[in-house]
């Protein structure tokens, strides 16, 4: 019987861990998107949401540590699989192509490592811009809050940020396009019928998530931060 560490390092264990962390990250991303969409609510809904999260204190740190572990494991295993594949085929094919049919090989599945690494690098810049960014203080509901909303709008008025974020969100969609179905398969989904259905649902979900995320920077940029959905300019 292998120890827990040995099992986790086996080819099956690595896949199970990638699947579990992948699902955790997917749930996080969906919550994150829901939070982002608060920008289209009341003028201070996003700030209220941010304040609500910060008020959680210890629970927030628990979630942060959980996310760091999930991101770290997911990335570490993914990169190690990618490095190992080079060793497993030292001499590459001169001609190689997918046979189609049941194959899920495509732009999305073949670029998992690349899109994953770009997302990881993006994450550092992203946290620096928003979580650690300089915010003004506003009084909402009779208490002081950080004006995250203004920081977001200000940031995405800059075309570099607006289009940079849009590009990375397209890559996120591509990563999830294979990733959602792959996580189910890694977590031992056996049914062929279910597999086909989940693949379609996964692609649609990945598309919706990407659109949801990239709509915000593009909308802010093209409306100059004064769009109707944002309540116009004040």
């Amino acid at each position, binding site marked *: 019987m292998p120890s827990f560490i040995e099992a986790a390092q086996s*080819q099956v264990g690595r896949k199970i861990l990638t699947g579990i962390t992948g699902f955790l990250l997917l749930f996080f991303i969906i919550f994150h998107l829901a939070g982002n969409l608060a920008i289209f609510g009341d003028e201070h809904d996003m700030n209220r949401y941010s304040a609500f999260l910060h008020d959680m204190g210890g629970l927030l740190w628990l979630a942060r540590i959980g996310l760091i572990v999930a991101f770290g494991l997911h990335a570490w295993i993914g990169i190690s699989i990618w490095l190992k594949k080079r060793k497993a085929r030292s001499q590459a094919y001169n001609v190689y192509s997918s046979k189609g049919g049941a194959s899920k090989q495509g732009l999305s599945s073949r670029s998992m490592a690349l899109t994953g690494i770009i997302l990881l690098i993006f994450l550092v810049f992203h946290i620096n811009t928003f979580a650690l960014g300089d915010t003004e203080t506003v009084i909402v509901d009779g208490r002081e809050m950080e004006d995250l909303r203004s920081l977001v709008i200000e940031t995405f008025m800059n075309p570099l940020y607006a289009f940079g974020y849009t590009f990375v969100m397209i890559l996120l969609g591509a990563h999830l396009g294979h990733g959602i179905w792959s996580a189910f398969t890694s977590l031992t989904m056996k049914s062929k019928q279910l597999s086909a259905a989940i693949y379609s649902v996964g692609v649609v979900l990945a598309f919706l998530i990407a659109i949801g995320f990239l709509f915000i920077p593009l909308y802010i940029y093209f409306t100059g931060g004064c769009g109707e959905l944002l309540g116009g300019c004040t």
Partner: protein
Amino acid sequence: MSSSTMTIHLKIWRQKNSHSKGRFETYTLDQVDEHMSFLEMLDVLNEQLIMEDGDPVEFDYDCREGICGSCNLVINGKAHGPKHLTAVCQLHMRNYNDGDTVVIEPARAAAFPVIKDLVVDRTAFDRIIEAGGYVSVKTGSAPEANLIPVNQKKANQAFDFATCIGCGACVAACPNSSASLFTGAKIAHLNKLPQGQPERNERVLAMVDQMQKEGFGDCSNFAECEAVCPVGISISAIAEMRRDYMKALFDD
């Protein structure tokens, strides 16, 4: 039966042994009959090479009826060639057109070193089987078969996995050179049946371990293996392997 002949240009990987560096050689065959199998076309090439005092192209084959799994060539980048559910020996030249260029490479994986030309050493698969792809039974007179009831659905599933002929196309086609489909099918085949139950946990742990030791890559769920499998084994075999592995870990 009328038949038409065609000219086929071949670009074949030639390699003296596992240590030497290989390279492509080009050949042209003028009178390729459309009814020839792919391997018969290579036979014609080899006859031609022998007549010219050349070195014939080594390739693996045995039954030539799609059941032994010896032949596994990567043809124009696809394991077993362009057709689904077809081993190279069952592939016919009518799938090609006059003047086509066909590139033939061996299955490429560090765990499958080239022996010569298109022949690779697939004993890594044998060692995976040795690790657990068997059931232990007392020898002697054969027991009454009907004493062990087998659920019909389970029997069918086990048979679907048992159809694996061990050709190695799954490894050849996998972008990661993973042997998960082969190993998964062999595990699932026995773990589905009552005769496989006593050793099910040891089997899955040992075979997964051996697969990794042989230097095959990780599975990334590309499902390319299922697409190239000449007997159409589904990647649900890999899911079965993962499920049985997890069960084995939590079972004492």
